[in-house]
């Protein structure tokens, strides 16, 4: 177990380093010199050179990279060329909002998918089970932002029950915070829940055909008892794989949903950065998103080891 975890951790660190190189290199080859952007077209070459020296962009790329990447380790993302404010605190601020948004969406997805998928599998011969499969198919076809707009129309415009957008920090008013996040959670979670329902259904169906479920029934367990005691954990292994992929999708989906609901998350920050040509800010946000996806993969690997003893003893 320990060896397995150390290996996964090593893979995680190596991937983050490689991702850092890739993100930095990608931003470096983009046209546009921060100093020229800051000073405009009429700047004298001397002024540009002076600003470059101040930004540190006149140094060799390798030095710049090491400086930037080394800073990341203790939360220093550098100082914005555009606003001259440190980037780290901004990202930290927004990251919290996005994480809450994504995890809430995932919880909604799980609350939908686990019961619906299990029910559809157990009743796969009945019309109701088939209806759930069909409904999840429709859900898959709807993009999150469209679901968001529809939800706003129904709950905010028609029913006037929930705010159509905006965000209230939890410290200001917990009830309003919850109300402001409900629609974003639903619009992210329902769509992912529809996708997940199909995976849960097929995982449970596979497990239902396993010999050890028949063994459990031969011991005197009922159909559902056998599925609950012996099926659920076995079925969760393929579902965890999909969950990991979906969390990554949600993280990216949040960028769009934050726009729809005017939520000050990472996605919002990223789009502001792009619009303001704030290269270092964009670089930082992208790096955080990439690292988050890699971290999710690591957590998935850890989950495998916790769930499956066959992996624990493994090499």
């Amino acid at each position, binding site marked *: 177990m320990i060896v397995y975890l150390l290996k996964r951790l090593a893979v995680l660190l190596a991937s983050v380093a490689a991702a850092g190189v890739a993100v930095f290199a990608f931003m470096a080859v983009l046209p546009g010199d921060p100093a020229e952007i800051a000073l405009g077209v009429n700047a004298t070459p001397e002024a540009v050179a002076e600003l470059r020296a101040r930004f540190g962009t006149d140094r060799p790329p390798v030095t710049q990279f090491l400086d930037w990447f080394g800073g990341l380790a203790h939360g220093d993302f550098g100082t914005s060329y555009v606003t001259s404010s440190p980037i780290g605190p901004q990202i930290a601020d927004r990251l919290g909002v996005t994480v809450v948004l994504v995890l809430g969406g995932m919880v909604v997805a799980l609350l939908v998918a686990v019961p619906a998928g299990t029910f559809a599998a157990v009743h796969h*011969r009945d019309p109701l089970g088939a209806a759930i499969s069909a409904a999840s198919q429709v859900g898959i076809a709807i993009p999150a932002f469209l679901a968001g707009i529809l939800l706003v129309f129904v709950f905010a415009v028609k029913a006037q029950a929930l705010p159509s957008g905006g965000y209230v920090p939890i410290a200001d008013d917990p009830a309003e915070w919850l109300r402001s996040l409900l629609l974003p959670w639903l619009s992210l979670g329902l769509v992912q829940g529809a996708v997940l329902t199909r995976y849960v259904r097929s995982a449970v169906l596979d497990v239902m055909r*396993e*010999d*050890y479920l*028949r*063994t*459990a*029934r*031969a*011991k*005197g*367990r*009922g*159909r559902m008892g056998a599925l609950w*005691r*012996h099926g659920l*954990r*076995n079925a969760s292994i393929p579902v965890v794989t999909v969950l990991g992929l979906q969390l990554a999708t949600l993280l990216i989906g949040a960028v769009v949903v934050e726009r729809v609901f005017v939520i000050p998350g990472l996605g919002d920050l990223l789009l502001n950065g792009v619009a303001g040509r704030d290269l270092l800010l964009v670089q930082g946000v992208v790096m955080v998103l990439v690292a988050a996806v890699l971290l999710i993969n690591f957590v998935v690997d850890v989950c495998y080891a916790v*769930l*499956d*003893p*066959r992996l624990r*003893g493994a090499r």
Partner: protein
Amino acid sequence: MLTVEGLSVRADDLELVREVSFGIGPGERVGLIGESGSGKSLTALALMGLLPDGVTASGTARLGGRDLVGVPERRLKDLRGRTVSMVFQEPMTALNPLMRVGAQVAEVMTLHGVAAGRARERAAELLGRVRLPDPERIARSYPHQLSGGQRQRVMLAIALANEPDLLICDEPTTALDVTVQKQMLELIAEVAPALLFITHDLAVVASLCERVLVMYGGRVVESGPLREVFKHPRHRYTEGLLAASRLAPRGTRLATIPGAVPAAGRFPGGCVFRDRCAHATETCATAPALTDPDLTGPEPRGDGHAFACWHPRR
């Protein structure tokens, strides 16, 4: 003790097992033999109430005064694992891969009212009883850490845990190495209460059972004491089966039964074996009943050797 009468198994309009009747006395070991697809396993699953979805059983089967067929699942599951137990063919997949072996043995006892602590102690005892070395360590292992033979012993320990009246074994040694097979058979012979043993291996039946039922096409075509049936088979199918299992002298062709077992529902009407039988005549278009001619003859002997054939071997 176990009496089965007119047991039929159907899937939609297909009759997979037809009118099977037999009995097993206390402590008796009965073999159920026949080629793959003859309905042996379905018969066993019907007795366990574990038929797959869409497959149903009719007829009666009583074990110690309790009905096994046509009873609601709620009452059946009280009997399963307590009064009647089953060991399956494939030991590699029959155990939950994510659960320790000891817990899987203990589960069958806690399900039928044994306290958790006591069940855990008993689980280790049972693993010792099926002659697994170092039962305490085995109890803490996961299935993937055990060999096929060891896993089948675990399955046997589970089956025996609540001291059932009847043990059903469905080809429990088919997936095992020959040497392991022999040990397993000796163990089953030693520990089984009454036994219904399903196999297509005649040598296994000969070493283990006192009485034998021969199935073909979902019917019992011959039944009787093992010696009697093996020495003087009357049904032409049994005759072919025994000939095919005999060692042929070097240089001669192996005896076979011509043709192959038809798919379910494709058996001929009348005698189900008639399309593969060299002795079949027009009479065989009518289904022969399973009868014991000794009982109807002038001097009934009553050894229970019955067969369903119009042209039996003399």
